[in-house]
């Protein structure tokens, strides 16, 4: 998921206040920025929303990688609009996190120097045009699994950002699938590209949900606070169940020889991704970790004079107005 392995923060608040807070959440009330909240709730949310926002921004890069190579004018426009939406989603999420008392620039710096993380999936490269299909279909598909329930999360600004994001995201997965359909009905080379993209993105997509958390204390706390709505395994299973028939429709083979329908459970049995690879990626050893952070740092550093220049002009103008009054 865009927020993976979020550690919940220990809370040492007054038990009575804590109980009242939990009761509000249990009643389905929304927690708003100025409401009392446990420090753990606040810190966990900053980490989770921040990671989600960073994922949107870093996530612009693998798809942005193909904006200048899109094969037709229409594909170019669609892809650019989609990647632009991701910038917007990052922006909405940063704003939601800012209501918790951390500024966007602070969060950006924490991303840039490695104190905060982003989703493992964006450390994989996009190598062919079919990857634009696979990312939309699989990566956005996996993200939606998590984002739809988060519209009901307990923190008001986060829930509202999610509503907006889900509304805008509805075209993202479809455009990905549309690219895949074109590829799968195209030339032999296109079919090969499509299969290759699925081969490379299948397991990294399953990793997006994070390792099993059925015994995790952090997840239990986050679920009690309703900032996590489902277990990782639930969402992963749902994703597999939804995606396998779509792959069949496309005439593609899911790269898992042990994948099969289980009549008894009513779900697909599938192979777990290689969690040691996942941990490697989180440690900074994915195929693109260094490239991604370098690109973000360069953009931030190169843009500093613009941000400062615009600010300086605004201050001069303000001063001139005050002087005129």
């Amino acid at each position, binding site marked *: 998921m865009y927020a993976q392995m979020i550690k919940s923060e220990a809370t040492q608040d007054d038990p009575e206040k804590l109980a009242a807070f939990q009761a509000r959440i249990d009643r389905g009330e929304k927690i708003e920025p100025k409401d009392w909240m446990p420090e753990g709730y606040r810190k966990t949310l900053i980490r989770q929303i921040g990671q989600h926002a960073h994922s949107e*921004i870093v996530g*612009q*890069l693998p798809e*942005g990688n193909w*904006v*200048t*190579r*899109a*094969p*037709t*004018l*229409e*594909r*170019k*426009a669609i892809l*650019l*609009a989609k*990647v*632009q939406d991701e*910038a*917007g989603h*990052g*922006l909405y999420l*940063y704003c939601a996190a800012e209501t918790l008392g951390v500024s966007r620039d602070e969060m950006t710096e924490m991303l840039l120097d490695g104190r905060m993380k982003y989703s493992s999936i964006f450390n994989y490269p996009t190598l062919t*045009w079919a990857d634009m299909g696979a990312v939309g279909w699989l990566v956005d598909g996996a993200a939606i699994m998590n984002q739809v329930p988060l519209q009901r999360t307990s923190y008001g600004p986060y829930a509202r950002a999610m509503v907006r994001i889900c509304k805008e995201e509805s075209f993202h997965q479809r455009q990905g699938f549309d*690219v895949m359909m*074109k590829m799968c009905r*195209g*030339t032999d*080379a*296109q079919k090969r590209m499509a299969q290759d993209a699925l081969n490379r993105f299948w397991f990294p997509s399953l990793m997006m949900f994070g390792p099993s958390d059925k015994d995790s204390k952090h997840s239990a706390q986050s679920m009690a606070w309703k900032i996590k709505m489902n277990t990782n395994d639930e969402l992963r299973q749902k994703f597999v169940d939804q995606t396998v028939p779509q792959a069949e429709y496309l005439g593609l083979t899911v790269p898992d020889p042990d994948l099969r329908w289980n009549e008894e459970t009513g779900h697909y049995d599938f192979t777990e991704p290689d969690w040691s690879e996942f941990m490697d990626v989180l440690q900074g050893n994915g195929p693109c970790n260094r490239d991604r952070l370098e*690109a973000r740092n*360069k*953009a931030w550093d*190169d*843009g*500093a*004079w*613009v*941000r*400062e*220049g*615009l*600010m*300086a*002009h*605004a201050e*001069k103008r303000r001063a001139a107005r005050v002087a005129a009054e």
Partner: protein
Amino acid sequence: MTRDAALFEFLCRMGDSTLVLGHRLSEWCGTAPALEEDIATANTALDLIGQTQMWLGLAAEVEGAGRSADDLAMRRDAWDFRNLLLVEQPNGDFGRTLMRSFLFDVWHRRMLERLTASSDPRVAAIAAKAVKEVAYHADRSAELVVALGDGTEESHRRMQDALDRLWPYTGEMTSDDEVDREMAEARIAPLPSELRPGWEEAVRATLTQATLTVPESAFAHRGGKNGARHSEHLGHMLTTMQWLQRAYPEATW
């Protein structure tokens, strides 16, 4: 040159300029100085790509050779491109990108305003849709040029550098040739030279506000809109942009 041949040339000039600038702006995707700028730059690029579809779509129709807007965009080599030299100049820093947009936007807006009264209703219809988009581009780029020209010492220096670097590419926008005269005679489009006084007045007003100095030289590079001598940069841009269509000519996407 027949009227239709001249019209085809003219439509390619409009469509190639929006295509090349739209592409250049799309190169910023994900790396602009702030999220808000990233989103705004993409909006402009999207407008320009949309306009490209209309201009090149009409060019293909006028040509009548069975080509589409995509064929024109993705299957012509640099010498067949008819965009202004200004828009193919590389992005440079964000300041140079903004200055390039500003100098073009002011011209583009005036050109489109005149084209809304074109004797060719197809041209007038495209211009009527595009002019609203471009009016916004022009306002935004002017505002940012003023702010950065007047901002910090560094932003001022960078904007002045950008202006000095790009100024020699502005003359081409308002120079006339045979195609332009044919279009003017048919009342399809104004003579570019008629746009010069208004363009220059507007540009100078903004640059003065931006505390920038307009270069004195009136020298103008030429060769973009007639395809005679593009810069080296265009070929590299096309190499990227056209790669898939060239590598897999049988495929549909």
